[in-house]
């Protein structure tokens, strides 16, 4: 579904991504892990069109999306759930969801997805007219994912969903991601929490200083010595 080749991204004079390549097949859940500043969020932002790469190709479902604008990319079904949730905290939960499905014209599909979101996150239904700013961190993460679902994603880009959340809440979030996986949505997950990321994904790429230094099946990497020492805090 997604094929990235030799992606180079600059922040001014700093080369954030030094030519990375990876792919995500239909239905897969792939994770991108690495330390802070390794270039994970940059990767996602480039994929969703917020940042323009210097060179390289991004192929989504057969089309090169490097020169496409964000809203076009969204319409193609590649949805980015940003780091830090970035919900509209001055607007209600309902309005947030409406914005999620902003460019979708199929009203039936929208209705269906709304139901799906409420099934996954009943608390959102409860608080539907409340201002999103009053939600807790975990609830905001649910809202952010729910918002993404409204767009009918073919592929979800999840940027650090566990950031700043208490361990119990992190569990809930990953349960949701598991459900999304089971629903057949292709997922590219960026995480600092390497444990969870490796457990939930099929394959993993490890990013360091803007380069892919390791990749493979997540189940293999979990058992790998080096990986354990560097990212899983264990021996």
């Amino acid at each position, binding site marked *: 579904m997604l094929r990235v080749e030799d992606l180079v991204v600059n922040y001014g004079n700093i080369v954030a991504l030094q030519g990375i390549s990876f792919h995500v097949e239909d239905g897969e859940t792939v994770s991108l892990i690495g330390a802070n500043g390794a270039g994970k969020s940059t990767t996602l932002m480039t994929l969703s069109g*917020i940042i323009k790469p210097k060179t390289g190709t991004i192929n989504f479902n057969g089309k090169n999306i490097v020169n496409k604008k*964000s809203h076009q990319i969204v*319409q193609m079904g590649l949805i980015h759930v940003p780091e830090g949730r*970035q*919900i509209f905290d*001055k607007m209600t939960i309902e309005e947030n969801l409406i*914005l999620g499905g902003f460019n979708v014209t199929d009203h039936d599909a929208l209705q269906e997805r709304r139901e799906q979101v409420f099934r996954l996150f009943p608390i959102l239904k409860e608080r539907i007219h409340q201002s999103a700013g009053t939600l807790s961190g975990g609830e905001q993460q649910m809202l952010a994912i729910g918002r993404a679902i409204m*767009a009918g994603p073919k592929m979800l880009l999840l940027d650090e969903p566990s950031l700043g959340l208490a361990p119990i809440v992190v569990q809930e979030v990953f349960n949701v991601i598991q459900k999304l996986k089971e629903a057949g949505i292709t997922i590219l997950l960026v995480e600092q929490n390497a444990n969870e990321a490796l457990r939930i994904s099929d394959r993993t790429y490890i990013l360091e200083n803007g380069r892919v230094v390791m990749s493979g099946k997540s189940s293999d990497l979990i058992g790998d010595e080096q990986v354990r020492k560097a990212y899983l805090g264990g021996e």
Partner: protein
Amino acid sequence: MTFFLVQLINGLKMGSIYALIAIGYSFVYGILRLINFAHGDLLMIATYSAWALMAAGVPVGLAIVIGIIITLITSLLMERFAYRPLRKANVETTLMTSLAVSVLLQNIVTLIFSPQIKAFKLPDAVTQRIQIGSVQLQVLDILIFAVTIVTLVVVSFLVKKTKLGIAMRACSDNMTAAELMGVNINHAIVFAFVLGGVLAGIAGIMYSGEYISFSPDMGFMIGVKAFVAAVIGGIGSFGGAAIGGLILGILEMFFAGYLPTEVTNYRTAFVFLVLIVVLLIKPNGILGVSTEKRS
């Protein structure tokens, strides 16, 4: 008692005008964080356009409508040529640019029409006075209230229920997220300037109809005061701007009406004093929404 009523009505009138301008200001500020000093000058554009058309024989109603359309176009031109190229610039740059645009507009109008003060005369049917209870009102006053209410309702609907309105509010709230939702930022910004332009146009006609004399520099001051009103009410919110406008109008009138004349010449200074006091107590304005995010 009558005096109080008269002051109140005057206050509500001026307040309505401020409210319309303040709302337009806050749409643009909300989405671009831009204090558009030229916004006040849009009132002047509307007045001059309508006046010129009426002088050329165009019927009043049509002249006013076309005048508002011209104001709308000016607003769009401002966005396209002065502000869009500067989207990524810092605060000082945009402030200075908007100041420059204001001066530019005033000077263009001065060049075309001369700096002399002119009179904006609406037909007698509108300016005639009628008696309601213990007060005398112009038909115009009633029109002002009516138009304000209708406009507020329409704008409220546009902003809450239409896609563009929601898009605009989303952009004000969180531009990055809006982009990720596939919202077309340019469209949302243009919408803000369209609404702002129309509101300023309406306010301009009202103001000139009420106070009759106009000149190229009439708009700037009113614009600044309306901005103060928007800040007092809380510039993030549409409701706040409206309320801020009304409050400012009423305060100004009572200040002028009840205090001795030595003091009342400080009307404008008073407005700024109110601003300083309000911001000291509530840094985000009376209804202001805090920009702090919950993590």
